[in-house]
């Protein structure tokens, strides 16, 4: 048996145990993936889906697990999210989603009626996305070993175009499009969790975005790279792309749309909406001369910045009052502040 403490690439002296921050979408998670998982496995790319060459055609393949609590939240539930999440990961490679698998880890004692509601929601979401759930798996664990239920979905998709959507395709001068307002999913979850007593009408943005991507592609937009905003929010998605593409990105804070109630809730808790989770938003890198056309296809979107140059991984943002700051990954999740 190999000596794990000697061969493990993560410095165990720093983090001898897994922390919540290792799943928070920030720097600790990035380190874990790069230094432990990628070192052991054979990842095909640093995008949301692997693109495989199969019998002369390209196939996109991805997987995602869903552990959200509560299971039902304003604007969605774990079932619809499990479909949207994987459909969106496929869409981010530019693929048309085709089929999904669904694996369930169920906790002993989960009301059957709850499970049925989740499954119905998954089926409805799959129909709406035009994908089929074709295979699956079921496991049950003892009471207390899962939060009701966890879902894993995997998916495959096919390409109807020859574009290669990945960070390496980004060019200097490209416009950065954001598909809508940010921060709704994270704040909807927070407002529905026990213990945090603020009332709001914030609903999750959980939605499939494959249709929006198809509309851009169908409109002739020469997309370079897409990334859906999940954990870690807009900021983390852009920093990751900047690191992969070694691109310097310049953003304008006032162009980023955030609903008033989302901003207010973030202010109260001392959170930055740039790092709050989303489930139905993406960023697209595209040629600057197609920016107006892209906005006419997706009227809710906005151009939030540009690729200033290649060769230097850095994201900067101009504040509303004219100062500038860098945007970096957080260590883990944002924690509400004392005062």
């Amino acid at each position, binding site marked *: 048996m190999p000596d794990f403490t000697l061969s493990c690439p993560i410095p165990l002296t*720093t983090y001898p*145990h*897994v*922390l*919540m*921050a290792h799943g928070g979408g920030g*720097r*600790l998670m990035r*380190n874990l993936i790069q230094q432990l998982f990628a070192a052991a496995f054979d990842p095909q790319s640093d995008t949301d889906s692997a693109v495989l060459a199969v019998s002369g055609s390209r196939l996109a393949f991805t997987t995602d697990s869903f552990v959200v609590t509560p299971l039902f939240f304003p604007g969605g539930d774990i079932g619809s999210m499990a479909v949207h999440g994987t459909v969106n990961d496929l869409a981010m490679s530019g693929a048309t989603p085709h089929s999904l698998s669904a694996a369930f880890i169920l906790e002993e004692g989960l009301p059957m009626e709850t499970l049925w509601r989740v499954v119905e929601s998954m089926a409805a979401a799959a129909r709406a996305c035009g994908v089929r759930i074709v295979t699956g798996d079921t496991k049950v664990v003892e009471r207390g070993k899962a939060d009701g239920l966890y879902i894993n979905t995997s998916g495959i998709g096919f390409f109807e175009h020859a574009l290669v959507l990945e960070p390496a395709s980004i060019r200097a001068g490209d416009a950065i499009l954001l598909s809508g307002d940010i921060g709704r999913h994270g704040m909807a979850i927070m407002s529905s969790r026990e*213990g*945090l007593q603020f009332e709001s009408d914030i609903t999750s943005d959980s939605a499939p975005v494959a249709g929006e991507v198809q509309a851009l592609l169908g409109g002739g937009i020469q997309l370079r790279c897409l990334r859906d905003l999940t954990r870690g929010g807009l900021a983390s998605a852009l920093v990751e792309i900047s690191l992969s593409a070694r691109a310097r990105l310049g953003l304008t804070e006032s162009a980023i749309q955030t609903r*008033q109630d989302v*901003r*207010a809730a973030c*202010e109260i*808790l*001392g959170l930055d909406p740039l790092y709050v989770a989303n489930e139905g938003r993406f960023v697209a890198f595209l040629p600057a001369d197609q920016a107006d056309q892209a906005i006419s296809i997706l009227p809710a979107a906005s151009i939030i910045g540009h690729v200033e140059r290649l060769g230097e991984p*850095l994201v900067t943002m*101009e*504040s*509303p*009052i*004219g*100062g*500038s*700051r*860098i945007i*970096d990954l*957080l*260590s*883990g999740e944002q*924690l*509400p*502040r*004392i*005062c």
Partner: protein
Amino acid sequence: MKYLDEFRDPAAARELSAALHAVTTREWRIMEVCGGQTHSILRFGIDQLLPPAITLLHGPGCPVCVTPLEQIDKAIELARRPEVIFTSFGDMLRVPGSSTDLLSVKAQGGDVRIVYSPLEAVELARRNPQRQVVFFAVGFETTAPANAMAVRHARGSGVANFSILVSHVLVPPAIEAILASPECRVQGFLAAGHVCTVEGYEEYEPLAARYGVPIVVTGFEPLDILQGIYLCVRQLEEGRAEVENQYARAVRRQGNEPARASVREVFEISPRKWRGIGEIPQSGLRLRESWSEYDAENRFTLLTGEVDEPAECISGQILRGVKKPNECPAFGTRCTPESPLGATMVSTEGACSAYYRYKPHA
């Protein structure tokens, strides 16, 4: 967003910046005491709108940063006890004690929970009568009233299994300690608006007079901070040293009387150790004798004693305004938010963390 967007208005910011350039004729060093202000300054790039002659020094007003190592070690000791539910505001959980942090204790099975109010911790105690619920009562004058209220509420509603681990500090004694130090470089202060919302600003008047420094009570939005700096520089240029209130929409000279009364009922002034600075006389709060049953340090026998800081960390000099974060040789290399040497790199309000997050670094 009403009451916020008005204070982030670009045109008004440009006007204030121009007025500040016009009034500044020589070099001035101003300290913003509060970590929330440090965070705003770097997040909005306010430092870039100032005349180059003005240097902002970042003060000790980050509650996470000045909580002494041994209090964090005591928190960790408590959180490891099986009968304890340890509750805290979120940003204390990542602060390293001498061997580990509360998030790691949680990962190893400690019952550590983030709460958003100390009253939530009292409610948790009421619902879990077989457990001991401890709340980490950290902070300045700002958080003291809510913590006082939690203890009063626990007694009033007969919740006996609730206690607090107190690490409360006060701003005026810290300002005085900085001013009295022979290495003091500070010529004017921005006092923390929310601290003064509670305690008022009478206490600052003798400090301004004795040390000849202007003190401007200042809010947290970009325009508040720009205006606070403007008022401070104007006083310096005119040779005045007074207490001025920029944050008049929230702060009255006598503060918030009911909140102060509540704090005085439960707490008394005591000496306190500040992380990176050392003990400052009369600079903290402890529970009064009549409330000592709610003091976690009385309720539990704790083994934690005196603890030393890592030698390489210069957070003490940073918190006193003697050095800036990027003057530390470990900054961004041996000290990062993932492996911090000191608390100023941990909290979002810590000066080192704010520099790391918002300013370019190697």
